[in-house]
């Protein structure tokens, strides 16, 4: 009492007056961050198996991804991965849940952006990943294609030699067969198209053939009308 407390307080502040300042000089000197510091959430596309644990563990619906079922295998193919960072509360649940360690927080804490759209980050499937797979699958595909091409060539020759026999399978009326075979002889493109379709998809070929015939009929009808006039 009687002013001793006041003087003691003055002594404490005076002591600190001569002590070293502890201010962190942030923009000039970057702070030393702990190893576990959670800055910006990063995603590694190559490791992801699209299991969805991260999406289910996130409390705030920050994460989402798109997948595609690939034909060759049961595995889902990851197309894109979205981190809507504005809702992230840095709880680390997604990182802990991930079985393949493809999510991690880096030490970048300067996350402010100029526009709201920049906060949302979309990871698209990197081209290298597909290229690698294509490189594996390429020879097989080539073989298949060349096989098909040979079949198409054979079919085209057969069509040009003996159109009636083949076309009879698709078209019912004699008149139509005649029209189409005339059309194929005059136009090689039409012949090529029908040959290709015949190899790949017979039903479609029939439809296309019928289409060609009706179109040709219309043309002829119009030509007749024009002649009369």
């Amino acid at each position, binding site marked *: 009492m009687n002013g001793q407390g006041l003087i*003691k307080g003055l002594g404490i502040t005076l002591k600190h007056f001569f002590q070293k300042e502890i201010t962190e000089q942030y923009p000039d000197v970057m702070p030393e961050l*702990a190893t*576990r510091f959670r800055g910006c959430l990063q995603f590694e596309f190559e490791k992801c198996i699209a299991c969805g644990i991260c999406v289910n563990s996130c*409390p705030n619906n920050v994460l989402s991804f798109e997948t595609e079922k690939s034909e060759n295998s049961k595995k889902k193919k990851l197309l894109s991965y979205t981190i809507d960072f504005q809702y992230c509360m840095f709880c680390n649940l997604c990182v802990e849940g991930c079985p393949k360690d493809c999510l991690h927080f880096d030490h970048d804490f300067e996350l402010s952006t100029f526009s709201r759209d920049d906060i949302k980050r979309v990871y698209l499937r990197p081209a290298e990943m597909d290229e690698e797979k294509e490189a594996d699958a390429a020879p097989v595909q080539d073989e298949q294609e060349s096989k098909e091409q040979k079949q198409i060539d054979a079919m085209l020759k057969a069509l040009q030699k003996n159109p009636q026999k083949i076309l009879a399978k698709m078209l019912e009326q004699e008149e139509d067969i005649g029209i189409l075979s005339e059309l194929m002889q005059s136009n090689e493109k039409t012949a090529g198209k029908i040959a290709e379709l015949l190899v790949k998809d017979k039903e479609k070929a029939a439809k296309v053939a019928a289409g060609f015939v009706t179109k040709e009929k219309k043309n002829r009808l119009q030509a007749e009308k024009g002649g009369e006039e």
Partner: protein
Amino acid sequence: MMQSDIYNVNVGPIHPSTHGGLHAEAVMDGEIIQDVIVHLGYVHRSVEKIAESKTYQQFVPYTARLDYLATNLPVLGYCQAVEKLLGIEVPERAEYIRIIMAELSRIASHQIAISATGIDLGATTGLMYGMRDRERIMNIFEMTGGQRLLSSYIRIGGVGADIPDEFIPAVQSFVNDIPKMMDEYNGLMTGNEIWEARMKGVGILSKEDAVKYGVTGPNLRASGIAYDIRKAEPYGIYDRFDFDIPARSGGDSLDRWNIRIEELGESGRIIQQALDNLPEGEVKAKIPKVLKAEAGTEVYHRIESAKGELGYYIVSDGGNKPYRLHVRAPSFINLMVLPLVCRGGVFQDLITNIATLDPILGESDR
């Protein structure tokens, strides 16, 4: 006595010393407070409703946002409540780490209370010293959890990850410095005659009123009841530690202030014992990815948070989400005595009382 017109002054929701979004409407006669009407709800985020739409694990980060100044305490309370509900055993090492983190959080919260009281009463330097020391706790939280304020470290079934190597030396040096910090706060503020004059006999909360209103925590202990859930109903492994419950009898602001400073030392003692006895082993129990409780089960679990009794009441309907979750927030109940302790005092006492009751609005509004 001279009687003038009664007028109302709105302290808050935007006011320098209302600790968040508190709105205290003071009914004044000159400088004398006739009554205080506490308006709440400015920080309402419907946390209890959110809980119903999140799985048990997903809700963990939300609990940290209740009492963001003592971030690990509300998380600890929630995780222990869920563990109680599902019957999960927590590994020994995780229990000790949890104790260290919880007590560090208590110190952090009390240091904010001390700093904020300092600035509310005009001792700006007190604020700076309190914050400076609290910064070391924040660094420790960053080490373990990766975040400073809302570290999100405690998990259902244990803690997020094992402590890093630099953790123990950092905590040890902090614990060693606690007496020095207490001396500094006492020297700069408690012993100061102006400080004493502003706090002594201000905002007296009698033992009877404290019990009647259900006040808990340091505010209750300042009124003369040495009640602490860590002793009264030990949760976790608190029964293994040797510590005292500081209590005073006056129930005024100075007592509430002194209790908080003394609790720094007691928390330091607990941390020291936990550090000395820290066992090796796992830090997280093996729990299923999807947690489901039996339909119709319910649990109430309470812990001694920095502000008082923090309770979680969880009802399950068998799903992976709580059917109903209720938080018994100590700040909400402690705030209800604000009109009681302010009546008859001068306007400046209102600020002192808000500061020493130490409410946190994130918790009271939820």
